[in-house]
């Protein structure tokens, strides 16, 4: 088979670019640890309360060390359970100071949901039987909408929350 000389150059550069992309994302992944959400731990979707992090009293945001936070959440159609405040009212907004490291942990009690803090890199599938985890630094201040971005039933578009990152 015969390749035109320009095609040889084109394919060499093309393959080179693809290799470069792979090197960059591979380096970010395996040296810097920036993987997409890929947690491998299972849970009984019918009994998520049996798991420490998803007990009702442990839901919501918690500071675990200086500048380090954990957010525990349970997704179900069509709601994110962020726990309750001191008045026993459901929390709808999670507030986090800028530049803190936050570990988001979430699971589903029923169908597949999504969990995206829109405008950030926090974007995970939430599947019954699995725990989804993603740790990141909240670098930018602002009010970010949390959206369920996987179809979960008739009320799918009513499933949301808010993450507020303040100075």
């Amino acid at each position, binding site marked *: 088979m015969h390749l035109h000389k320009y095609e040889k150059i084109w394919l060499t550069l093309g393959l080179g670019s693809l290799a470069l992309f792979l090197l960059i*994302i591979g380096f970010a*992944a395996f040296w810097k640890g920036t993987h997409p959400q890929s947690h491998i731990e299972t849970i009984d979707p019918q009994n998520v309360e049996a798991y420490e992090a998803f007990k009702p009293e442990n839901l919501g945001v918690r500071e675990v060390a200086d500048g380090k936070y954990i957010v525990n959440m349970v997704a179900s159609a069509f709601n994110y359970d962020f726990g309750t405040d001191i008045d026993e009212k459901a929390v709808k907004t999670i507030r986090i100071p800028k530049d803190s490291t936050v570990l988001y942990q979430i699971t589903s009690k029923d169908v597949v949901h999504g969990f995206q803090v829109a405008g950030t890199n926090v974007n995970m599938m939430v599947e019954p039987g699995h725990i989804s985890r993603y740790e990141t630094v909240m670098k930018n201040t602002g009010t970010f909408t949390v959206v369920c971005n996987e179809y979960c039933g008739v009320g799918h578009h009513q499933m949301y929350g808010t993450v507020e990152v303040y100075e």
Partner: protein
Amino acid sequence: MSKNYLLFSKQESRLYMAFMHVTFASLLIGGLMGLLQTLVRSGKFTLPFGIDYYTLLTVHGVILGLVFTTFFIIGFQNSLMGKTVGISDKQRKAAWLAFWIMLIGTAMAAVTILVGQASVLYTFYAPLRAHPAFYIGLTFVVVGSWIAAFVNFRQLYVWKKAHKGEKSPLLAFMVVINMIMWFIATLGLAATVIVQFIPWSLGYAETINVLLSRTLFWYFGHPLVYFWLLPAYMAWYAIIPKIIGGKIFSDSLARLAFILFLMFSIPVGLHHQLTEPGIDPTWKFIQVILTFMVIIPSLMTAFSLFATFEAAGRKKGFTSLFGWFKKLPWKDVRFLAPFIGMLAFIPGGAGGIINASYQMNALVHNTIWITGHFHLTVATTVVLTFFGITYWLVPHLTGRRLTPKLNKLGIIQAFVWTLGMAIMSGSMHIQGLIGGPRRSSFSEYAGGEQVATWLNYQLAQAVGGTILFIGIILMVYIFIQLSFFAPRGVEEFPIADEEEDAEKSPKILENWYLWIAITIALILFAYTIPMFDIMRHSPPGSVPFDWPIGR
């Protein structure tokens, strides 16, 4: 007289036209659903009669993603086989059987969705449960397509036996590659639907393994998009050169590209599952690498196409750097529509590379960027090429002609489509990057600045969607004209030739056993360990969820 001008027999034409009629009926219905969706999402319109947004969305996805495409592709590919290697009476009857099984399956699934018993979207992710008729209908569509595939295999086999030592016609080779890929891919779909979904939806199995079903779905889901794309590539490689008065640039490179598509389209499904729990990140990354391999044949194609255009122009005597470009037949819709499709594949392909780039997937996963992406690749690149094919295929089948008036209307159609899609897909891309989700009815969420910005883009999508629907009406009008009313005559079936002195294609390119063996080996490599892990680390299964969550 060249075979290109020799019409099919009546019986043969009727078979291929049957597929075309279902195609364009689907286009009209699916397109209407799309229009309504963009209107609902603009926030200025609510659906009458309590119709659920997600029922529309399911109809749109199933009818356009699965029915429109599959019927067009199988009809078109059958006509290519008929033209290049011929079809026997027995094979034609088997192809009719394929058609009817597919149609019955389609009707079953469609009715189930329309009566609100399957609002599970076209990906039907467990544990949302649809009525069993939905899954059984889908199975029929797939089984019908298998019959079509085996008819095509048989057609080439018979031809090869009668033409010992000759290389198979390029288009027949391409069709067989696409159908082998489709067959291997749909085995995964059949496995999850028949073994998991049907017993579970009927109540024989109490629970379902969600992650396993998703992984099997995406084992099928990525080759599905190549199943759509390859017929467009067939037209680009072997039809368009004829329309522009040129020759096939390189028969062997075209075959090599298709072989690479066969090998690398399937072992890559995990790149649709990058943000899912329960899958080892290393295996996700391995499949990302394999995904990047499937970009190579598209890079080859890009070069071949430009070279086809340039070589044709230069042979006509244009010596300046881009003189050949100006002289392409811009006023011929059979060229113009697919050409716009090719252009759309530039941002479409670049977007695809971004989507597959491992951790970067978090930027776009399940945002409306993805919807924008496949409205470029499938709904522009593939669909405009299919329209471009329709302009000569349908009159060739009905013994009519594409009149200058219809040609002009086609050109208008192509521009309307381009404009509508640029607005709709463009605003989807931007909205997705700023976090707007896909597959969602109108919602103001918790309000605020971010959501307000999304809603502006959704207004733009409604404008684009409306323009696109005008394009659909134009196209259906042209189809009806070409089918029933255009003046009688003989429209060319434009199959391009090779250069007389073209280099001989190496024999190894037709070593089917070798290519299939490599394909299977790659699939086993990419999937065995992840599948084994998924089954070994299974959580308790999921019980079904019906309305108001599912169905």
